[in-house]
């Protein structure tokens, strides 16, 4: 994730981590290391790594392609291959990348999967995505069905279902592929490390409760969640990263500094916002600047919870390894029902003293987007705070209209200002 202006030591460390990871992926075939393709929400990184397997996350590859300006070509390729303009662009971007040689973000090839682990959390498109990948690869596929929190809670039956699938199907499958015996102690150690890193991640995200906030919990937040969400959870590297990050943020709090933005340290915090929805990746910096140049800081976001609601108390638990993995899978933001999503946003708006909330509605992701207009109105009604609504996409540049978005954002910020002065 190359963002020239961010030069903190933690950033450098993250870059090195990611580079090392993609190197490891590139050399995996020659080193004989096997790889598991799986999805970010509810990923089972600790379990996968406990079999000496490497996780590969297609959404991360797609978003990286978006940031590197490759996604338009990839999507075009997939659409020429018969995919509809209407459907998820992450899928099309990934398929286009695959058809273009599967070159990863560091310019090195990605390994083929030895297992497609269809961890089916919070998104129906995942199912189709791996059915499509299965057409391309001759490898086993495993469906891990994660029930949705339709009634707003995890029932014992749901937990039992996931634990059984992990125990009776996934673990034997991972043993077969890796040739490594399941070692629960090894898993427990990893989960203990996860939990440590998660503590520091939560501390970092909650630092945004300070006024002014030392971090941006959306544009900056996506970097902070990177290592935890992806391939490093359960490693000492992740623990070290979050320790370093925490000390940096503490330094900024001590000096009363605002977040680092593409234009340097934010001078004056003018608007505190809560954001719902994923960011746009193709114009990430341009998008961010539309906020930072107006003094807008995101103090809490839901996107940074797609890999778990750690700030609501969840921790990976070495004492209940499989149960906590099951709860983790079921607890991701996109696996929450609507009333709970609205409650979460409402509590963020209050806890983080936000001036308003903004919804970035992305075309690709129905899991997030379907019903967001109701979230908008409910939150306006419940909090009385200013709500904003913009539309874009994850990685399809055709759906990022900079002039349009800027226009709405400016109107939105001025509305907050007017509300402040007008009352």
């Amino acid at each position, binding site marked *: 994730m190359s963002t020239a202006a961010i030069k903190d030591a933690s950033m450098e460390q993250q870059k090195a981590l990611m580079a090392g990871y993609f190197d490891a992926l590139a050399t995996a075939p020659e080193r004989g290391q096997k790889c598991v393709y799986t999805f970010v929400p509810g990923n089972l990184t600790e379990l996968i790594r406990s079999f000496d397997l490497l996780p590969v996350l297609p959404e991360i590859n797609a978003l990286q392609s978006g940031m590197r300006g490759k996604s338009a070509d990839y999507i075009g390729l997939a659409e020429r291959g018969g995919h509809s303009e209407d459907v998820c662009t992450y899928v099309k971007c990934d398929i286009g990348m695959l058809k273009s040689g599967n070159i990863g973000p560091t310019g090195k090839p990605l390994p083929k999967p030895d297992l497609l682990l269809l961890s089916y959390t919070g998104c129906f498109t995942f199912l189709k995505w791996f059915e499509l990948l299965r057409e391309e690869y001759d490898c086993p596929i495993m469906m891990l069905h994660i029930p949705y929190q339709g009634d707003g809670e995890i029932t014992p039956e749901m937990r039992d279902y996931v634990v059984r699938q992990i125990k009776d199907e996934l673990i034997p499958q991972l043993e077969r592929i890796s040739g490594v015996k399941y070692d629960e102690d090894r898993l427990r150690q990893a989960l203990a490390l996860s939990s440590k890193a998660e503590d520091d991640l939560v501390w970092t995200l909650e630092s945004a409760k300070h006024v002014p906030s030392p971090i941006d919990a959306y544009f900056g937040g996506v970097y902070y969640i990177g290592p935890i969400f992806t391939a490093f959870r359960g490693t000492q590297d992740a623990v070290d990263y979050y320790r370093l990050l925490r000390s940096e943020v503490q330094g900024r709090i001590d000096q009363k500094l605002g977040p680092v933005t593409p234009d340097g340290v934010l001078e004056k915090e003018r608007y505190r916002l809560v954001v719902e929805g994923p960011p746009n990746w193709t114009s990430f910096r341009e998008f961010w600047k539309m906020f930072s140049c107006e003094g807008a800081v995101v103090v809490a976001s839901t996107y940074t919870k797609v890999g778990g609601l750690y700030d609501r108390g969840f921790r990976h638990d070495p004492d209940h390894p499989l149960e906590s993995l099951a709860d983790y899978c079921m607890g991701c933001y996109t696996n929450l029902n609507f009333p709970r999503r609205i409650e979460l946003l409402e509590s963020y708006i209050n806890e983080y003293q936000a001036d308003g909330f903004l919804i970035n509605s992305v075309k690709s992701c129905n899991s997030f987007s379907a019903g967001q207009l109701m979230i908008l109105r409910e939150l306006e009604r419940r909090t009385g705070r200013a709500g904003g609504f913009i539309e874009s996409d994850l990685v399809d540049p055709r759906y990022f209209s900079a002039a349009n978005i800027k226009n709405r954002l400016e109107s939105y910020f001025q509305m907050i200002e007017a*509300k402040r002065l007008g009352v």
Partner: protein
Amino acid sequence: MECFIGIDLGSTTTKAIVVDEDGRILGRGITNSRSNYDVAAKVAREEAYTNVRFSALSQRLRENNALGDQLEAFEIDLGRSFALEGYLGQLARLEECCQRDVFRHAAKGGDTAAISEAITDIIASMRKHAVNMFMGEEEARSDFFRDIAGSDYTEYAAAIARSGGPAFDRLLGVYDRNIIPVENEIDPRSFSQRMTAAFKRIAPLYRGEHDRLAQRIQEVIDEPIDDIRTVGTGYGRARLPFPKEQIRSEILCHGLGAHLMFPATRTVLDIGGQDTKAIQIDEQGVVTSFQMNDRCAAGCGRYLGYIADEMNIGLHELAPLAMKSTCRVKINSTCTVFAGAEFRDRLAAGQHREDILAGLHRAIILRAISLLARSGGIRNEFTFTGGVAKNQAAVSALKEVANENYGELTTNIAPDSIYTGALGAAEFARRGGHGPLAAASPGIGAQGSAATPPKNEHQAVKA
């Protein structure tokens, strides 16, 4: 005279409003937005200033009891003469550019002299026609140079081509290459020069009062207009030649403008050419929430334009036809791209055009209603603005659906609603260019009750 200016740069037209320190509207101006926002902003402002001075003149003449019952005729004549002056100035520049163009492209044709001569003839005819058009009884087809000159030029060029002159498309090519630069040039003559010339043209008609009139005109010319502050808004606002602090979002300006026109307004709907806005405001005119149409322009004014094109009739003819419907057809799509096809398909299926049109108007209004619902519904009073607010069929469909869903409402439609955004911007300028009430003097700001339309709806204001 100290004043404040609001400029609204729209996708098709640019509007300017001038208000005094009490928020009274002193003048308005409108022009087409062209390809150049800077010029459009300058021209709109110039037009508004002209309007200010005409209003001032009118007031002075009335105070002086000048001309008696001839006064109104004089005002109309002077206004037309002034407009003619502006038109002739642009025509002269058009001729100059076209002639230069002919010689620059000389090598290609070989018939340079013939084309040059033809252009001289065309412009001469246009000049002659202009006098009739502006000073005579003929009704102007448009207020914008591009429109009037374009249709005249085409007509005369076609006549010349028919009678054995240079080919029509060659002549038209010259025009097409030069209209944009001409349009983007600002009249180099001062108001004083143009006014003097305009007065001179009609002075013989008012010989008896010549000196008194000349004196009043001179006073108005001499009156300094001191623009304290300008605030810009609209789609083109990022490119307005003002510092960022003097730019306000069109949503805020629109909300405030509607509040000034109708102080009890709580919900504003604006349907323009390419975008639709639903805005909720509080009792101070502060925007509390808003929604705009998404990426596509389905259901905006442009959609009606496509339908009119498809039917080969004028935009203004749509509503009267739709109003004749006895059995409205249910139309589901308001996609501009498919508008024509849908229309043809339904005609082919034997449906009546009035009924289809009635269905289309309702479909547009349903889109707007859903945008309103997204923004929080419709609250009394409800104000409808923008180009589509001039369409009676759209207005009655809107009232019908709004009343069905939100109960009986007071629906406001201002004849000059096109200036809503500019008015809001002018009010922001008056309040100091900051937040709505930050710099407003207590007692005036919020109510804005002083913002009444000028008494004299002079014809230089192009509504």
